[in-house]
């Protein structure tokens, strides 16, 4: 779950991280009255995706009228497919320097990492690729969190690659970074986030540290512990997912593990690795997979039916490849489930099934009798479904 900027900043504030004064507006009039309070403002599109600046989603407004007009334009935009449900109006900051500060999951280290760089305001991936020495890193013990001396060392390491004059004297900066990093890390822990990012972290000319932008991603597996946030996000959920693939939105609604890939061969299998491998096989045979759909370990007939239904929602699909490894499930049962589903859903498209495991012979015979193509091996099945779809397309 990705929070919108204004939601991320509300979380920052609750943890004591300073943010610019700001108001959320959902209409041009709201924006105008917010700007009356705030003075000169920046008006920012609230979308769960980067690059909104380049897309015109961020505008400076000197007067309330300018703010109203800017909001009016931005609220009608679609940024990389996302509708804009709201704008955030914020006071202009007197920027002295821009830093990057983020807490993010580091898979290799199996820990959260704290990243600090004086090359702020840029995409951190680009900095990491071009000038990795400009990013200082810290991997705190997850129980203690970052300790003050660790944060000071992180800051010293980042300073070592900083260019130009510093706005803050060193001892002051070292002192201010300690509570800031501790709060951001604490927030990441409290929200079960895998990313909490302040980019840019602004040092104003008067020497304050202020979060210029905010990004927070909550771990999907931990959403059950944050129902309040899920509800809060709910208000903007439709817009927040407007840029997402609509088939995937529908699959989420149905509770299915589905990824839309844009090809014409629907793929269903059990186990993420197996399904990924099935997609690879289709591609190797010259086909183009329409989707990834994992029905999980103990495949039951009803789940198979739901999966077939989902795949058929994609109008591009011209053939279906079901690849089931029967570990505990019996082959004949899977076959029966498939036949029933095919009949109920009146599937006319080519349906190739590769099934292995307990009672696979019986299962294969049942499928054959019902006119569904059984295959002995997965590559063989892939070859057949690709051929049939190519043939049908001619």
């Amino acid at each position, binding site marked *: 779950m990705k929070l919108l900027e204004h939601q991320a900043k509300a979380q920052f504030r609750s943890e004591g991280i300073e943010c610019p004064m700001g108001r959320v507006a959902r209409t041009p009039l709201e924006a105008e009255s917010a700007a009356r309070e705030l003075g000169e403002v920046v008006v920012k599109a609230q979308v769960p995706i980067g690059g909104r600046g380049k897309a015109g989603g961020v505008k400076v407004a000197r007067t309330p009228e300018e703010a109203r007009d800017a909001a009016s334009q931005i609220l009608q935009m679609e940024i990389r497919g996302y509708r804009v449900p709201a704008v955030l109006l914020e006071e202009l900051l007197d920027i002295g320097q821009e830093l990057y500060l983020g807490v993010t*999951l580091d*898979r*290799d280290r*199996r*820990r*959260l990492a704290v990243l600090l760089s004086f090359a702020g305001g840029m995409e951190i*991936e680009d900095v*990491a*690729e071009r000038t990795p020495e400009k990013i200082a890193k810290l991997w705190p*013990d*997850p*129980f203690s969190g970052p300790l003050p001396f660790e944060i000071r060392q992180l800051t010293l390491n980042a300073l070592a690659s900083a260019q130009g004059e510093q706005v803050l004297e060193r001892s002051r900066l070292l002192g201010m970074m300690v509570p800031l990093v501790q709060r951001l890390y604490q927030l*990441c*822990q409290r929200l*079960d*986030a*895998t990313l909490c990012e302040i980019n840019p972290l602004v040092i104003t000319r008067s020497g304050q540290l202020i979060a210029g932008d905010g990004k927070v991603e909550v*771990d*999907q*597996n*931990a959403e*059950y*512990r944050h129902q309040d946030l899920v509800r809060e996000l709910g208000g903007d959920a439709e817009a927040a997912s407007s840029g997402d693939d609509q088939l995937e939105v529908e699959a989420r609604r149905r509770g299915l*593990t589905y*990824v839309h*890939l844009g090809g014409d061969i629907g793929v269903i*299998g*059990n*186990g*993420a*690795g*197996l*399904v*990924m*491998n099935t*997609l*690879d*096989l*289709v*591609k*190797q045979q010259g086909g183009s*997979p329409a989707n*990834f759909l*994992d029905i999980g*370990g103990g495949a039951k007939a009803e789940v198979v039916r739901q999966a077939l239904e989902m795949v058929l929602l994609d109008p591009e699909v011209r053939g279906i490849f079901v690849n089931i*490894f029967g*570990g*505990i499930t019996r082959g004949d049962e899977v076959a029966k489930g498939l036949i029933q589903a095919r009949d109920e859903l009146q599937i006319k498209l080519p349906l190739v099934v590769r099934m*292995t*495991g*307990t009672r696979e012979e019986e299962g294969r015979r049942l499928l054959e009798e019902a006119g569904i193509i059984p295959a002995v*091996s*997965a*590559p063989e099945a892939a070859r057949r479904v690709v051929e049939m779809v190519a043939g049908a397309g001619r």
Partner: protein
Amino acid sequence: MSILLNSESRVLVQGMTGSEGTFHTQQMIEFGTNVVAGVSPGKGGSQHLGRPVFDSVAEAVISTGATVSGVFVPPAFAADAIMEAAAAGLQLVVCITELIPVNDMVRARAYLASRGARLVGPNCPGLMSPGERSKVGIIPNQNGRPGPVGVVSRSGTLTYEIMQSLAAAGYGQSTAVGIGGDPVLGLSFSDVLELFASDPETELVVMAGEIGGSDEERAAELIGRGYPKPVVGFISGRTAPPGKRMGHAGAIISGNTGSAASKVAALERAGVEVADTIEQIVERVTARLRRG
């Protein structure tokens, strides 16, 4: 011989009285695993599947001398169960549970690191040492067959497929380890490769990776520094688009890391033959074992 699990292993099951725990413990017992106890807080003193049930891992260890735990508890409690097993002195913890919050696992992983306990998983099928008639987890019994091939894989069903295909061609396994599909795992490919390196039964290793993270790249570095046994590689997810979570929480290409191309290239640079299909895995295993 085998790695991690052998006929001496005394296994307890955390969450044995639950429905998943019950079913898979039965399977484990049928396979020959020496299951000595179950742990379900509040149910201590009862019996289940003919095994005593304890309120805590510590009590189970004292009474039964268990050495290995299989964890089948729900995601909200799984990280705690893993730490409980490590605190009780178990040397191997196998966590099958999926959907565990990732920061829970970060903490559990750090906790284990300071106690020298090994973790397999989570979100994994567990492991099986067929020659020792011992398994912990959910790898189907019929897929195991004793032999010289060490199997290590992130995916469950793919592990089963590989085991079955190898068995059909006449090649059994020393131990098969499913390390799991989560972003934060216990044993990595490198850890398991190091164990296989010094296991006399293992003549060859099949390593099946997938997109996401860079554990495969790091294993390639290990192999590149000189690995004593042939390794046959396999990477799934070559057609996966960036930024999409492909079923496994860990199977996602983020930024510039985690693509199948990068993993295949790293393995090939290290001299690993990378197979394109499971059939090719079997061919290469055949070729290598005949040659060697």
